[in-house]
């Protein structure tokens, strides 16, 4: 799960990580008021108006504006940002609609650094990454100059050692140019310790500060905050429900999640209903292998009920882009008759206007086939998944 920059910064503040003063706003009027407040409090005429969308690359995409001539100007900038479709390298060509802004104090930046934390799957530890190349796409740095990314791993028992944080600080040459080098390094070390604790306690899957800045006065401040949470930990973080911005989520995927299904929209026209994530992915692959294009990834899971299968099949049936449906089941725990009942129940309610190919294998397969046969639905049975993929691709092309 992703959250907005301003929400991430509110969490940073709770862990004592220094952030600029800022106020989230939803309208130009609020933006103007917030800008005036910041100008009064900081004694500086500079504010920054930042579009709040979940994708990165907002600055480059035109979603971050520095305003130097007063609160009214900030309000105007806000008016131009709100409602725009912001396109960045992470949004896709259609962009993401801007509905929230963050108005922040402007700071005197001496250096821009990158600081990131991820779960390193190979080392099975949290990896802390730092680079002098802040403010740019870190993917680009990793691809072109990987030696500029310094990495330390966190022992889950010991935590991040102070020496590890200092290694990063010296590696970044953090003292250089600071009017108070010792203090700058100490601040950085403290931020790293807090951030590691935050990452573990808040069950993050990703944390990025790009840029982490050093001001001309030598202070280290998080100018950005990107936090992703581990969905598996949502049951012990009830507060996440409030942090979720439904406007940023695909409504169909959200609906599926609510029903306990795993669904991802794709741009093809063949709907798939499958049990198991690996088989669901492989079903998409084999549809393409047979010359078609999958409309979705849908894993009904191992222990789906008849109701869940019905819901899943209704989601596929009601999608306007779907021109054919392939049900591919290898029942282990999932029983074929439960799938068959769900398919029949959903079709009875919504009707079946597109070709349907069903491949059933495994537990209770005979009973499943009987239910489908007795339903009178126009179903093409398939002997195996390749046969099924070929049949649905042919049927969609013929229609």
């Amino acid at each position: 799960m992703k959250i907005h920059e301003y929400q991430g910064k509110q969490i940073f503040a709770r862990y004592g990580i220094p952030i600029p003063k800022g106020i989230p706003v939803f309208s130009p009027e609020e933006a103007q008021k917030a800008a005036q407040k910041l100008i009064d409090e900081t004694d500086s005429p500079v504010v920054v108006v930042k579009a709040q969308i979940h994708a990165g690359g907002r600055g480059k995409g035109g979603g971050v504006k520095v305003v130097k001539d007063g609160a009214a100007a900030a309000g105007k900038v806000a008016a131009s940002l709100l409602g725009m479709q912001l396109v960045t390298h992470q949004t896709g060509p259609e962009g993401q609609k801007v509905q929230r802004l963050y108005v922040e104090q402007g700071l005197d930046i001496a250096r821009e650094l990158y600081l990131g934390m991820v779960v390193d799957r190979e080392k099975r530890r949290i990896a802390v990454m730092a680079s002098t190349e802040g403010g740019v796409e870190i993917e680009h740095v990793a691809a072109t100059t990987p030696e500029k990314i310094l990495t330390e791993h966190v022992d889950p028992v010991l935590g991040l050692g102070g020496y590890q944080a200092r290694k990063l600080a010296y590696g970044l040459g953090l003292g250089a140019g600071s009017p108070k080098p010792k203090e700058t390094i100490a601040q950085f070390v403290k931020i790293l310790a807090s951030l590691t604790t935050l990452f573990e306690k808040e069950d993050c899957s990703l944390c990025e500060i790009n840029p982490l800045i050093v001001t001309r006065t030598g202070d280290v401040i998080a100018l950005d905050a990107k936090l992703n949470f581990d969905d598996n930990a949502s049951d012990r973080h009830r507060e996440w429900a409030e942090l979720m911005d439904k406007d940023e989520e695909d409504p169909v995927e959200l609906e599926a999640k609510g029903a306990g299904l795993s669904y991802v929209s794709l741009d093809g026209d063949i709907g798939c209903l499958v049990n198991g994530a690996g088989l669901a992915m492989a079903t998409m692959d084999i549809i393409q292998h047979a010359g078609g294009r999958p409309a979705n990834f849908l894993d009904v899971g191992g222990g789906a009920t008849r109701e869940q299968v019905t819901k899943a099949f209704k989601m596929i049936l009601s999608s306007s882009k779907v021109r054919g449906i392939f049900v591919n089941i290898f029942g282990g725990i999932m029983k074929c008759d439960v799938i068959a009942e769900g398919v029949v129940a959903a079709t009875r309610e919504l009707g079946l206007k597109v070709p349907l190919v069903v491949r059933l294998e495994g537990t209770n397969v005979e009973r499943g086939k009987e239910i489908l046969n007795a339903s009178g639905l126009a179903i093409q049975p398939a002997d195996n998944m390749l046969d099924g993929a070929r049949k649905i691709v042919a049927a969609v092309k013929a229609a």
Partner: protein
Amino acid sequence: MSVLVDKNTRVLVQGITGGAGSFHAGQCIAYGTKIVAGCTPNRGGETFEAKGPDGSPVKVPVFDTTAEAVKQTGAEVSCIFVPALGAADAIVEAIDAGCRLVICITEGIPVMDMIRVRRVLETSSARLIGPNCPGIITPGACKIGIMPGHIHRTGRFGVVSRSGTLTYEAVGQLTALGMGQSTCIGIGGDPVGGMDFIDCLRLFNDDPDTDGVIMIGEIGGNAEERAAAFIQENMKKPVAGFIAGTTAPPGKRMGHAGAIISGGKGTAADKIRALEAAGVRVAPSPAEMGVTLKAML
């Protein structure tokens, strides 16, 4: 012969009184697995009843702690059906009780919990399979997990997979070709787990009764790439592969927590290239895993 488990393996089930635990413990017992103990806190002293392969009643004592279960019954392998937020604790409990092998079926364990479990595994000789996996089966001898037993046949081919249902698919294809299985291991779809491809391939390589292996990977991480390097260096037996997710879009979690292409890394194309360079024959479609291995013999 086989790897890790055989007909003499004594198994403990943690969470045996729960819905999934009781159903699958029953299925395993019906398959012939020696389930000798169950464990559920506050349910010690109860008896779990099921039917063996011949329909005869089997009674399994339930204990409050795995330590007690191991002490009383000599269980050496534990299978875990404990809910996600308690599962990491259950794994560590099994390791602490002295189980040599822990199989965690539970799906949805927070990755931070699994990082701590890995730290415990580093200081122990115990092995972990999973979490978020179907388990392990040596056909005709021992089924520990949730896979449908009837699709398997005894034989000489190993299967190792990150995906449950794709394992069944591969097994179904092998069985249909008359190629039985020595042992099939589902290592699970989470980003941080126990045994990886290399751990399993090493066992199959050393097992005199395994003649070839099907390895099923998916997008995300670099476990397949690392396995490719191992295969090139060490593997004496043919390995056929399949990688799920060629058509998966980047940045989207495809069901499994570990199945996500992030930062342009972990694509199916990269993995297929690495495996083919190491001499693995990668099936062009998931319907051709069995025939791909057969063609290598």
